């Protein structure tokens, strides 16, 4: 879990891990260094869900490869299956945020990078997302998540860091350690 003030570079840090911006340093997933595999494969292994969801077609359904898995996750984030027929232009920010998460989870990534995944959601829906996040953790998916909500950090974090002056500082020690993403430089 990463927190830190606005503009500290939290989102840039996640973008760098998935190689969206030019950056230096080595990133490993397990034993795999990212430059060893093609970038698009790296990104389906290590999925990043940005704070704002991008759309390239008018209809929601055109952004998904429909499958039972997608339907299942949709219900878990509190969205009806009819959402596929909706127009993107009429989605609320909360709906967009959840659909962005669903889209990434449908790839079955081994590692998740979440940029404030509940910032646009009410308490009840936030709760549903947190349940989903815990479920992913239990399935062995590693997660790095950005959050501004101290309570949320307490609820979800195994380890938490503050990003300050370009450095990640451990905030407090907590149980266990997560395998997965490591970044040097």
């Amino acid at each position: 879990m990463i927190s830190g003030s606005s503009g500290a570079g939290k989102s840039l840090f996640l973008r760098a891990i998935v190689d969206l911006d030019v950056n230096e340093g080595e990133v490993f997933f397990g034993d795999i260094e990212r430059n060893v595999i093609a970038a698009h494969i790296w990104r389906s292994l290590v999925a990043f869900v940005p704070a704002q969801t991008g759309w390239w077609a008018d209809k929601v359904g055109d952004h998904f490869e429909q499958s039972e898995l997608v339907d299942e996750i949709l219900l878990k984030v509190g969205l009806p299956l009819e959402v596929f027929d909706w127009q993107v232009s009429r989605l609320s920010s909360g709906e967009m945020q959840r659909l962005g998460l669903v889209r990434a989870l449908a790839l079955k990534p081994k590692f998740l990078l979440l940029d404030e995944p509940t910032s646009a959601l009410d308490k009840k829906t936030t709760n549903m997302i947190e349940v989903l996040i815990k479920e992913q953790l239990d399935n062995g998916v590693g997660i790095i998540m950005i959050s501004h909500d101290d309570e949320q950090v307490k609820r979800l974090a195994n380890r938490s860091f503050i990003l300050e002056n370009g450095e990640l500082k451990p905030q407090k020690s907590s149980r266990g350690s997560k395998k997965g993403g490591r970044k040097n430089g």
Partner: protein
Amino acid sequence: MADYILLSYWDLALGAIFILLNGAISIAFRLGLAKKLFIVTFRMVVQLSIVALLLKGIFTISNPWITLLVALIMVLFAGREIYARQEKKLAGFWGFSIGAGSMMVAGMLVTLIALTTQIQPDPWFKPQFALPLFGMILGNTMTGVSLALDNLTTTLKREQKAVEALLLLGKTRFQAMLPFIRIALRAGFMPIINAMAAMGIVSLPGMMTGQILSGVDPAEAVKYQILILLLTAGATGLGVISATLLSAYRLSDNRDRLRLDRLKK
């Protein structure tokens, strides 16, 4: 072709009366266009007169290298137009050379094929044929390429989130840019498609009209015009596709990243 009617300078001066009339209207309605109108009219006359002198000289010399040189100068001017018409352009060397280079290769290729297989003047590089032909092809290719490139960069910049969303879903750079490359290609093809659709019904093209005015049988003039349109469409297509794909290539990298930082700030 001997029955064309020679124009005297006096005839041209009479034609300029309409410009004076336009100028008067502009002043009356305070459009602020009068000065501009006179300047562009004057420029037009000077530019065309110089061209007439140059062409006369080039036609008399009829040297392949000089013809090629003139063609290259035309490319430079057209390339500058493409560059100037783009709101967002690739930084550095690429900004000019992708547009100009694609246009040049496409235009020259099509012109060379037309000169050596279809029109076959003697010698094949005869500037009376090569230069006007190349000019017409170049002009249309220029319009297509500049529209396509302007569209590509503007759309990619505006749709950055969408492109990155596709990248994040494990798409390669060309898969992710494809919806927007399509938009750019369509924009680039639009003028030549419109031109062909309107041909003969809405517009009588300048070249054909010119030939008819100088006494050529309309059926022959139309045959020339059809050939020119086919060549132009061919060159525009080649130019638009290569310029768009090269720019898309330059605006991304081998780690499947969208590189908008390669646009000029």
